[in-house]
């Protein structure tokens, strides 16, 4: 007699196989000896990994890392005052601002990409298509993540700590710097990490704003796929997959992200 719970466990195992299978197969294929996607892999070779280290792949990877890091820093810097204002003040137009802040999350990034491309072309900013346009676009689509995360940590702040600091004679600035900031630090870091990951993994916006020599790794892989299968891509994919994973694992160790993953779904 199979209990419902045991049956459920069976289903869950299958779902995990479905989720992880393709990723594991990609990793396995990257060590394949032949240049076909044979599975199970035949032999063992590091030649595809060696090829993945060529400038053709390392350059876009490095480009994406730079883009995502800068996006994370800038969108967090912009998100801090915005989240603070939205969380702490009630003012005219606040609702509209909340809607506008979350807008890039609601609207398909693909459409924002097309719009930005048109804007840059028609405003005579054609020369800025590439890194600058990508940076601007990525900040726009990553801002909601950063604002939400910071806003959540502001909301969960015990309200009395600021009053306590003020009653002990701390100025507003001093309270912010010595009390509020340390308490929301992990929220800020989590927001920056989400922004980094979102930027690093974006394709929908980036396909419109890249230009030769200034191509994020995701767009590069996508373009290369048109020519069919190459095991080098499997190695590149694994690297592209491990970088954000490593970042999140490190940050998780140091400050913890777990609380904010559910929080992502909450309101500002």
């Amino acid at each position, binding site marked *: 007699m199979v209990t419902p719970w045991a049956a*459920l466990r069976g289903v*869950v195992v299958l*779902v*995990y196989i*479905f*989720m*992880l299978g*393709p990723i594991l*197969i*990609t990793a396995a294929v990257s060590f394949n000896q032949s240049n076909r*996607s*044979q*599975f199970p892999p035949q032999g063992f070779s590091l030649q595809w990994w060696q090829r993945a280290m060529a400038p053709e792949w390392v350059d876009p990877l490095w480009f994406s890392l730079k883009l995502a890091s800068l996006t994370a820093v800038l969108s967090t810097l*912009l998100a801090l*005052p915005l989240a*603070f*204002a939205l969380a702490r*003040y009630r*003012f005219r137009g606040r609702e509209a601002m909340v809607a*506008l*802040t979350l*807008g890039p999350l*609601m*609207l*398909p990034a*693909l*459409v*924002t990409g*097309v*719009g*930005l491309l*048109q*804007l840059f072309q*028609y405003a005579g900013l054609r020369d800025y298509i590439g890194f600058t346009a990508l940076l*601007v676009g990525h*900040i*726009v689509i990553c*801002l909601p993540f950063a*604002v939400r995360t910071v806003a959540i940590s502001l909301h969960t702040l015990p309200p009395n700590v600021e009053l306590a600091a003020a009653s002990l004679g701390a100025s507003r600035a001093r309270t912010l710097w010595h009390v509020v900031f340390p308490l929301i630090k992990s929220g800020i870091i989590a927001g920056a990490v989400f922004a980094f*990951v979102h930027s690093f993994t*974006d*394709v*929908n916006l980036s*396909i*419109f704003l890249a230009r030769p020599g200034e191509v994020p*790794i*995701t767009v590069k*892989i*996508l373009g290369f*796929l048109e020519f069919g*299968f190459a095991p080098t891509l*499997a190695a590149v*994919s694994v690297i*592209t*997959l491990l970088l*954000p*994973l490593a970042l*999140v694992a490190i940050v998780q160790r140091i400050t913890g992200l777990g609380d904010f*993953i559910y929080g992502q*779904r909450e309101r500002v």
Partner: protein
Amino acid sequence: MPWLLVAAPMALLLAFFVLPNVLLLSTSFLKSEAQQLTGELTLENYTFLFGKPIYQWAFLRTFTVGAAVGLFTVLLGFPLAYFLVRTTSPWKGVLIAVCLAPLLASVVVRTYGWYIILNRFGAANDLFLWLGLIEERIAFMPSTGAIIIGLTHALLPYTVLTIMGSLNGINPNLEQAAMSLGASRTRTFFHVVLPLSLPGIAGGFILAFSIAISAYATPAILGGPATQVMATAIYGFITQLLDWSVGAALAVILIVSSFLLLFAAARLGAKQAAI
């Protein structure tokens, strides 16, 4: 005071989010001739899209893919979410992390795994040949089915997260109460847990649906010219045909579609809050 704080981010959003979208909206009503926009107002871009069978099929395919992906992510995601919320295993944290980890990988990378599996010389063909299930190699892709599989895989974590959220919100005492009144585990599940988690299921379905209809990478990799969806068609109009008017009109249709879906989701969310 708050105005000073919001000035910079709002300026950025107005200049690089609102303005481009307004530009796109107005372009969709302008006539374009020989790849150049003219000042003439027209609805031609829309009538062109709705009139041509190839784009009618693209609309139909886009929404079929969206609905199928929504359905499959719920069918696969609900058991997983239920398990993750209820399990008492010491591995619970790890299992949740493993379930969410794919979100850290780009859709391109994850879809590439399906490319390796589904292409004519891929793992699925190798496996089926070896098992003797097929005699000759079959092309599983490019096809609409392959796109649905790839997107279901890509969006499953979102649905799981949404459903877990609503399952976490169910008071465990309700189940205890049902069972103490003599309901079996199965009966409790179908009469208590499932109805209470419906808003989460609907939310997950719509979230996956709305992301799926605007996804570009997966249909581009697992589909082909014969399996165009709206996103790939937009890309074609903008970058290959350089027809901004029709491309913009298509983008506007995509925006309206996903807004209607999100509006529906918000209505459901409001109900959820009321409960």
